[in-house]
């Protein structure tokens, strides 16, 4: 059932399939499917909704009255929602006239705090990688859909899904890192050094300043995440994951030229050994390592204690 403002005969029929998504040319109404990336408050009860669509790339549209509790489609225009939209062309921003839910990813992603924080970083990355509005970005769209599906179904660790999305999203944008051959001279690997600026692993002859030496396990994990080799990625240990996430974050921030706001809030899981290492520390690459609720409580109380000492 499609609910919206359009009266009988104005909207698309209930039997219309998503596959039939098409631009209606001169008609002021058009239809597309998309994933809600971000919402911003507008006026009394409206919202500006940023959507990554299948056919129109990233667009910003207005949801009228969606903040009212009586809104019929406010719940469908929340971040993470995969929706079928009907839009009316407006003077500056297009207006949402009808919405139908295709996949309510938000509900399951929200139920797990780790998935939520990784998911918001995925959404922000998708928004930043599709810099131009209305520039079709089908590959980014399909990649985002796959990432959210994986997060919602809990198939893999949320942190790994985020890293895989970032690496593959950068590849689509033209910044594919090289984990086998040297990123500068293309000499066959394996190589030991990683350089963010050079764009991947580098040989000792090409070594630019500011290289790091990741563990071979971390390099194998990064390579697996880039190619979608999930059995290898799922079998990786916490240390390799931590190294890989640090490198991925640094690589992303280098190419975006500006940090991602949500990345510092990403909560990553680790095993018992990683917990003891990560406890009380904030991990490399701007990625925060808070393994469990218990340690989060400890951290808060420690900070409260510190504040009280300072006051005294």
């Amino acid at each position, binding site marked *: 059932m499609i*609910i919206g403002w359009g009266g009988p005969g104005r909207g698309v029929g209930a039997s219309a399939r998503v596959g039939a998504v098409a631009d209606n040319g001169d008609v002021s109404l058009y239809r597309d499917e998309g994933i809600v990336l971000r919402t911003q408050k507008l006026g009394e009860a409206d919202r500006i909704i940023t959507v990554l669509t299948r056919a129109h790339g990233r667009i910003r549209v207005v949801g009228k009255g969606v903040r009212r509790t009586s809104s*019929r489609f406010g719940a469908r225009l929340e971040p993470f929602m995969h929706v079928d939209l009907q839009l009316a062309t407006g003077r500056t921003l297009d207006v949402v006239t009808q919405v139908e839910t295709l996949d*309510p990813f938000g509900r399951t992603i*929200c139920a797990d705090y780790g998935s939520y924080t990784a998911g918001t970083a995925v959404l*922000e990355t998708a928004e930043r990688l599709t810099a131009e509005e209305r520039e079709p970005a089908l590959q980014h769209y399909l990649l985002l859909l796959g990432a959210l599906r994986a997060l919602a179904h809990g198939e893999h660790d949320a942190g790994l899904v985020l890293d895989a999305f970032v690496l593959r999203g950068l590849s689509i944008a033209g910044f594919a890192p090289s984990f086998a051959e040297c990123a500068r001279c293309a000499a066959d690997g394996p190589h030991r050094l990683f350089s963010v600026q050079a764009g991947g692993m580098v040989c000792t002859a090409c070594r630019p300043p500011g290289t790091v030496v990741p563990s071979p396990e971390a390099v194998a994990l990064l390579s697996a995440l880039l190619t979608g080799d999930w059995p290898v990625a799922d079998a990786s240990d916490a240390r390799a994951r931590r190294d890989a996430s640090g490198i991925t974050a640094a690589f992303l921030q280098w190419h975006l030229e500006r940090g991602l*706001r949500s990345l510092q809030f990403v909560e990553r899981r680790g095993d018992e050994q990683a917990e003891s290492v990560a406890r009380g520390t904030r991990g490399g690459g701007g990625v925060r390592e808070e393994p469990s*609720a218990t340690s989060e409580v400890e951290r808060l109380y420690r900070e409260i204690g510190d504040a009280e000492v300072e006051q005294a």
Partner: protein
Amino acid sequence: MYEGVVQGLIDELGRLPGVGPKSAQRIAFHILAADPDDVHRLATALTEVKEKIRFCTVCGNVAEAEQCQICRDPRRDPAIVCVVEESKDVVAIERTREFRGRYHVLGGAISPIEGIGPDELRVKELMTRIADGTITELIIATDPNLEGEATATYLARLVQPMGLRVTRLASGLPVGGDLEYADEVTLGRAFEGRRQLDV
């Protein structure tokens, strides 16, 4: 452009949320034409609200004293605390006349994309309140949107191991509405939170 003072007033009014240049001009001329006593009352109200109002040291709600009226009221149950995002939500819940416990105002919801994490909210203050053992139930009444739900999940995970009863406000069908118009997300929640009818 008008004479200095009038234009100054229009500019200041135009900075208020939802007030555009035309509305600002209309309000400014209404003020010019209004009775001087009315205008003085408005001016006093504006200055007093900034001078006298501060945030309650216990719950973070707006208050005229160190503690707000609700935190000072001995008839309110200190064992039940309702966690809300903003002071506006306290007023909304107070209007129901159903809740006799106390509040905790977080000052927003967790929204990583806007750079707001748990450390930017009054979570630490909540943990301090819980630590003294008076609170037995925490009602999480954050907004029923994505950020509100994520904040609720975070708080529940944080507080549950401490042996408290943690509850979340029910969400579902609005009173006076038709079932057929409900969206599937809300209707799904209503099914999840269905309750037994005891006749």
